[in-house]
């Protein structure tokens, strides 16, 4: 009986070994990549379309796209990078997060040859926050711009027989004339620049456009300068003296954001980035160029100059086993043809110089006209947490306007000290 069992077992093993040895031509395994981004229909379709064309050219690589609601996206990215397991191979990455993630080793550095090309071919502000110790940790997709242009409610201007202001003085004067106050309530804001992004960006742009600077070579904030004082005084005067708007955009109490109020017919002029335009068309059913416009905003000083932070980019997970394939996809994405298609679909100002200067861009995205000519005038805002920076500037501005800080000089001393203690790296 024992012999019989040994015989059967031997036959079984032999058959198994023959079966294994018969597989002498190993199949090429498909490399599977995952991509995480935030939910935005136009953006998501664009990623998928570029992914499909990449996979058609690279049959050995398969990409799965997963998109999450924006308010969950950052925490999902963070949690997956912390756990060092699971998560995605590639992430859509906000530039500001790069400051937090790159220094921890959570992201994979871009291969040197590809990085050298990218650094050479994009606007400096689009990679500033993605750089760490000479390495690049993301492929920039967009030029994040909050300066140089503003939304205009054309009907309000028409009703008041006014044209689009072209100088700073005209802008302030128009803001005052277009503001309406009834029973102590500002029911229409002429020039609503008071919001989380615009106050800090305008403050920096006003300093730079008058020939000043806000940071020294050692990365320390220097705000006790004549240019900073003039800039903050002007911002204060526009709210308190000229009454072009109020503090609602920073302290709260409104039902809509300033640009949404413009789309709802309650604000005349609002400086914001071009990303708000689609909301006017899609959510408010307005026609671009008819109901509202996006035009060049006058500079405070005698030259165009502004600071910009790093916008949306694509990064590779530092713990991914497929970094090479992931960077192959990013390299494919980086071609002018793909980037142009994506920037237009996502209504982003391009990060890559050749795409931004491509005449076809303005044909496909006419609202970019006021911006593409000033991209060279930008400087990277600085390697620090921009949320903390904006909070400090906005809190100081609110305190100044509310009278808690008695003067512009004291506001600048306090702001400079706070920024150098808590924000400067």
């Amino acid at each position, binding site marked *: 009986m024992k012999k019989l069992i040994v015989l059967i077992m031997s036959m079984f093993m032999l058959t198994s070994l023959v079966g294994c040895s018969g597989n002498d031509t190993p199949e090429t395994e498909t490399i599977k990549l995952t991509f995480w981004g935030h939910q935005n229909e136009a953006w998501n379709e664009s990623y998928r379309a570029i992914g499909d064309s990449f996979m058609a050219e690279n049959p050995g690589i398969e990409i799965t796209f997963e998109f999450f609601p924006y308010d969950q996206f950052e925490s999902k990215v*963070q949690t997956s*990078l912390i756990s060092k397991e699971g998560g995605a191979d590639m992430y859509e990455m906000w530039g500001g997060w790069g400051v*937090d993630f790159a220094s921890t080793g959570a992201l994979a550095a871009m291969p040197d040859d590809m990085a050298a090309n990218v650094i050479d071919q994009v606007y400096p502000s689009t990679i500033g926050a993605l750089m760490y110790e000479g390495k690049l940790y993301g492929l920039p997709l967009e030029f994040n711009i909050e300066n140089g242009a503003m939304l205009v409610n054309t009907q309000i201007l028409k009703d008041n027989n006014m044209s689009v202001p072209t100088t700073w003085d005209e802008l302030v004067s128009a803001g005052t004339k277009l503001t309406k106050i009834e029973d102590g*309530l500002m029911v229409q804001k002429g020039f609503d620049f008071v919001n989380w992004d615009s106050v800090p960006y305008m403050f920096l742009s006003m300093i730079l456009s008058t020939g000043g600077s806000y940071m020294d070579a050692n990365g320390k904030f220097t705000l006790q300068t004549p240019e900073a004082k003039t800039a903050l005084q002007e911002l204060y005067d526009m709210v308190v003296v000229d009454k072009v708007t109020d503090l609602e955009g920073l302290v709260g*109490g*409104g039902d809509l954001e300033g640009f949404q109020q413009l789309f709802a017919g309650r604000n005349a002029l609002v400086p914001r980035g071009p990303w708000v335009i689609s909301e006017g068309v899609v959510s408010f059913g307005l026609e671009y160029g008819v109901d509202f416009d996006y035009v060049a905003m006058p500079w405070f000083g005698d030259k165009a100059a502004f600071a910009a932070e790093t916008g949306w980019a694509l990064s590779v997970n530092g713990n991914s086993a497929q970094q090479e394939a992931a960077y192959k996809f990013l390299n494919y994405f980086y071609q002018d043809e793909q980037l142009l298609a994506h920037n237009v679909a996502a209504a982003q100002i391009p990060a890559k110089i050749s795409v931004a200067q491509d005449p076809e861009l303005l044909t496909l995205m006419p609202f970019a006209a006021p911006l593409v000519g000033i991209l060279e005038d930008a400087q990277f805002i600085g390697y620090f947490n921009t949320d903390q920076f904006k909070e400090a500037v906005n809190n100081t501005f609110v305190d100044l306007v*509310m009278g808690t800080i008695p003067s512009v000089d004291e506001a600048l001393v306090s702001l400079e000290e706070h920024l150098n203690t808590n924000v400067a790296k």
Partner: protein
Amino acid sequence: MKNKKFVYFVLIPIFLHMLIFIVGPIIAGFAISMMDYNPLRDTNAFVGLANFKQLIGDPVLMKALTNTLMFVGVTVVLNIAFSLMIAQLVSIFKSNKIRAFFRMAFFLPCVAPLVASSVVWARSIYPTATGLANMMLKTIGVNPVNWLGDPNVLMWSIIVFTIWVDIGYNIILFSAGIDGIPTNFYEAAEMDGASAWHKFRFITLPLLGRTMTFVIIMTLISHFQMFAQFSVMVLKSGPQNSGLVLTSYVYKMAFELKNMGYASAIAVLLFAIIFIITLIQQKIQKVDWDY
């Protein structure tokens, strides 16, 4: 003996649950509060009590603490006063159907998710230009108020909302307590000629002692931990940090600034405050009677 073994056996899952999901995180929180902790880093330095020392000199924390104590103090007192008053008024009705109707009506806001109620109030009732509150003020000739943007008004606006949204739960508890008081006490008092106030003061209130203790402790704890309405109704931290409470400061430090060591130190402070207040409150309101 066999019975005891069985009891221990069936209690194992709940003890395991407590250990893993309650005791474990508390210990982890204490540990993280003594570290310069950024979850993205491979190594996080032990800093001892440095985060707690930083608490002492942090003016924003002081503001958050003041706001929290003010919010909890006012909402808990008003919540209990109103809910007790309403429960007493509802108990006057003899018909069970009418009492059930009022209890359901007051309980309705508790059923809706707090976030959803907060959005409705922030977008429909409180907006300065288009909100219901200012429209009503306008009809009586009063100038509009910036309910969520004026640092002197913001916290009161949230207090009003919180009382509206949270009062129903305590009304149900007090109603149950009042219904449980034997009617012979009231009949005896009536025979002695006691007024409605005297019956409430000398019968209802003392005999609601156990319910009252439970309601106060649970309301205190839940109001110290309130976060959703501050997150939804307050823009950032509110003007001059007037809408910042300890829970929102913990969130801001941990998830916006990724300073989880300091955030844990604030959470430990919040834990200590709730723990001490609960102990004091339990000592004061010790109930050792029965009816």
